[in-house]
């Protein structure tokens, strides 16, 4: 058996050309085969790709879906996002743990089933949800959770859990997922008909420079949230010196509450890949990579089939549309559970077979990106927009939305509302209109753009969704007035702490200190000075962190401080001579337990 591990691992490495930069694929394949990437497997991988065991371990230990220690044959990952909590996560988790006879994070003694939790899996509109290996289960209840465990015990085959399939391509034989699209509003950019090849034909009739001109004229800005002008990015990459260029599609939407790219990948895969091909033509690239988040692995076989179909039709591969020398092909890089890889330089690191650590900037990816070559990284939705712009023209696109924010935006809306789902809306729509559309009653707080953006209270409902006002990558989470904003902030801090890469000090240490501070106030042990300290610490982390994660993670705390009156969390009474938040009897409890007697002075 031991020899087996090394042998099989060596074969897997060979399949990926013993290429050090394909370490993600190698590690995922080994994990699939053995339920872990053991030290022995890491030694072998290192030998084959000419690396070192510790380098392989550096990568394996970084990603949540890879593990050095053995996991169960079936891994149940219950989504622990705040929306899942609101919809009953705790009861489901308890029911499943009890049925399995283990606690969260453990594996059954027979090594069959592991129960653990994972951040947002992009199913907030059908929460509570879980991943069972790569099979998605939604709308869980304690009873369904128990039944799921009993079924798995019997057959250990996650695919058999799929008893009914969702709408649209969720029914596709290569998808067959219980997931529902929940498209509540169909706009003209993404949910109108799209004929594969039609936009590409228009593009290749133009010069690459004219394609870039068209995108610039449309004033398309990045849909991932940062809003960088897409045409400008392309132009930078096209003009950067280099032999080879790359087009990367960021399909790693990990912002809690975001799921719109999941629906676009399911329903608009052709439009997306066509956008990538057009981008390749425009910037002079022959290689595209779709970085697909590990949580959406259930879409991989389907997306592969779309790639293959497009090759057959002459839309991908060599001599595209019969034009000599026009080459472009796409590979799909699977992620393995790391929110930070949605940050474009971390995404590049991951594609290179490294830990998902963001890179130092400058140089920016359009100058030096994937493997040091000029690279554009665009969001799924951005690339879908590209195809439509080529078809309908930049004027048509720019006529929608506002002057500085053109086109439409696909929103993922969830939380305390009756109609969670995907809405394609024109930019400029107000927060209040969203509340009405989704039939949210008694809305007290909204997160616009997920926790990394901004939290607004009832007084900001006239704000507009656009880059100059309420900017968003697409996640909108609605909370009713009964929800405690500071608790919401703490939940997201836990998320950011877990997902921080740990590279820089302010984010790695500061977020934990901030969380402790927030918890102290929630716990009723706070004092006014704690609020000042929370604000100072938040600003410090935002100002000094190296990448967007740390620069955004304290936003929910700042939002809660700004909107709400938090005085209910202050200590009611102060004992003279003691720090207000200090509880003497609590402080000595540990010592009392050790010595086995109670202090008579407390």
């Amino acid at each position, binding site marked *: 058996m031991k020899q087996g591990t090394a042998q099989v691992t060596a074969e897997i490495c060979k399949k990926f050309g013993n290429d050090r930069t394909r370490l993600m694929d190698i590690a995922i394949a080994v994990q699939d085969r053995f339920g872990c990437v053991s030290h022995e497997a890491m030694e072998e991988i290192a030998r084959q790709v000419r690396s*070192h065991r510790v380098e392989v371990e*550096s990568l394996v230990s970084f990603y949540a879906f890879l593990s050095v220690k053995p996991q169960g044959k079936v891994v149940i990952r219950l989504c622990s996002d705040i929306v899942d909590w609101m919809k009953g996560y705790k009861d489901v988790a308890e029911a499943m743990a009890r049925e399995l006879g283990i606690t969260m994070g453990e594996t059954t003694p027979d090594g069959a089933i592991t129960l653990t939790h994972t951040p947002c899996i992009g199913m907030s509109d059908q929460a509570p949800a879980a991943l069972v290996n790569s099979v998605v289960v939604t709308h869980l209840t304690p009873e369904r959770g128990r039944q799921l465990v009993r079924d798995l015990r019997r057959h250990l085959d996650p695919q058999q859990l799929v008893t009914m399939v969702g709408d649209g391509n969720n029914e596709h034989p290569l998808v067959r997922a219980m997931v529902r699209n929940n498209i509540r509003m169909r706009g003209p950019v993404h949910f109108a008909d799209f004929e594969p090849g039609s936009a590409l034909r228009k593009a290749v009739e133009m010069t690459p420079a004219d394609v870039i001109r068209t995108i610039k004229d449309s004033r398309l800005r990045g849909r991932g949230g940062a809003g960088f002008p897409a045409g400008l990015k392309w132009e930078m990459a096209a003009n950067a010196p280099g032999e080879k260029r790359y087009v990367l599609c960021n399909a790693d939407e990990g912002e809690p509450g975001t799921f719109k790219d999941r629906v676009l990948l399911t329903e608009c895969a052709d439009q997306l890949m066509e956008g990538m091909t057009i981008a390749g033509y425009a910037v002079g690239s022959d290689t595209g990579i779709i970085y697909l988040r590990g949580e959406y692995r259930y879409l991989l076989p389907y997306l592969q089939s779309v790639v293959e179909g497009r090759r057959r039709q002459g839309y991908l591969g060599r001599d595209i549309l019969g034009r000599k020398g026009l080459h472009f092909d796409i590979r799909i890089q699977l992620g393995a559970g790391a929110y930070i890889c949605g940050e474009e330089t971390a995404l590049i690191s991951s594609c290179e077979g490294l830990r998902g650590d963001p890179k*130092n900037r400058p140089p920016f990816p359009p100058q030096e990106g994937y493997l040091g070559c000029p690279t554009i990284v665009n969001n799924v939705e951005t690339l879908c927009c590209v195809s439509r712009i080529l078809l309908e023209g930049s004027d048509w696109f720019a006529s929608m939305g506002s002057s500085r924010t053109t086109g439409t935006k696909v929103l993922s809306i969830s939380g305390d509302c009756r109609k969670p789902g995907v809405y394609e809306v024109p930019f400029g729509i107000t927060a209040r209109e969203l509340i009405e559309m989704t039939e949210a009653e008694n809305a007290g707080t909204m997160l616009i753009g997920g926790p990394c953006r901004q939290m607004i209270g009832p007084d900001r409902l006239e704000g507009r969704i656009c880059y100059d006002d309420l900017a968003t990558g697409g996640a909108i989470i609605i909370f009713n007035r009964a929800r405690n904003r500071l608790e919401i902030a703490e939940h997201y801090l836990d998320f950011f702490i877990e997902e*921080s890469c740990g590279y820089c000090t302010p984010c790695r*240490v500061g977020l934990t200190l901030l969380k402790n501070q927030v918890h102290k106030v929630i716990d009723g042990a706070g004092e006014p000075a704690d609020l000042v300290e929370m604000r100072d610490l938040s600003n410090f982390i935002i100002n*000094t962190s190296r990448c967007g994660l740390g620069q955004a993670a304290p936003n929910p705390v700042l939002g809660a401080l700004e909107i709400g009156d938090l005085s209910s969390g202050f200590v009611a009474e102060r004992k003279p001579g003691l720090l207000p938040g200090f509880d003497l009897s609590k402080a000595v409890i540990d010592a009392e337990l050790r010595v086995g007697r109670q202090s008579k002075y407390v």
Partner: protein
Amino acid sequence: MNRVTFTIDGKEVKAIRGQTILKAADAAGVFIPRLCAYRDLTPNGSCRVCSVRVNGRIQAACVQTVAEGAIVENETPELLEYRRNIVDMLFVEGNHFCMFCEKSGFCELQALAYRFGIKAPRYPFLYPKRDLDMSHPHVFLDHNRCILCGRCVRASQDMDGKNVFQFVERGGRKRLQVNGDSLSETDLKATDEAVSVCPVGALMKKRVGYEVPVGRRRYDEKPIGDDIEMKGEK
């Protein structure tokens, strides 16, 4: 033109195009505190102690290159506080006991704390449980004192031509790992640069801890950064 001129706190500094702000400041005799940056090792911008404002934006001086006419702020009250915060955080993140640490007086973390006037950290200690690796005959690795600066990682690769150290895990669990089950299984030698570049007492040679008496150690006599500032006064 291969030279650029910019200012640090109003002082005009000449630099070579492509140089980092930190290197340019060093050459000009302006001390910008740092921990993860070390001489010619490829800078990684991870500790953030060298945070400066460049044309209003906070950047790490060790990775940011100079630009003509840039206005760099170094010793503002805000930046001094931020640096104090970072040093404080590094203290509370690990388990540092200066009073009986062999590195005391040579330790850059301690020396920065003294320079910043830190008597006790402002944040509560996190008291993590960390390991000690004594397996190697001539070197030990005390994770309690590791500040994750990555100097040893880079020195092992770039200077020693090995790959003894890497970081594993992420977030608050991120830690230094050796290429093997323990340090003795690696090809680390006591003479490796990776050992000598450690700014704190995490990677230490055995049996030499008290060769220099307390009171006559490097930072007992002069504050950290003094050597750089001396250049500026000439």
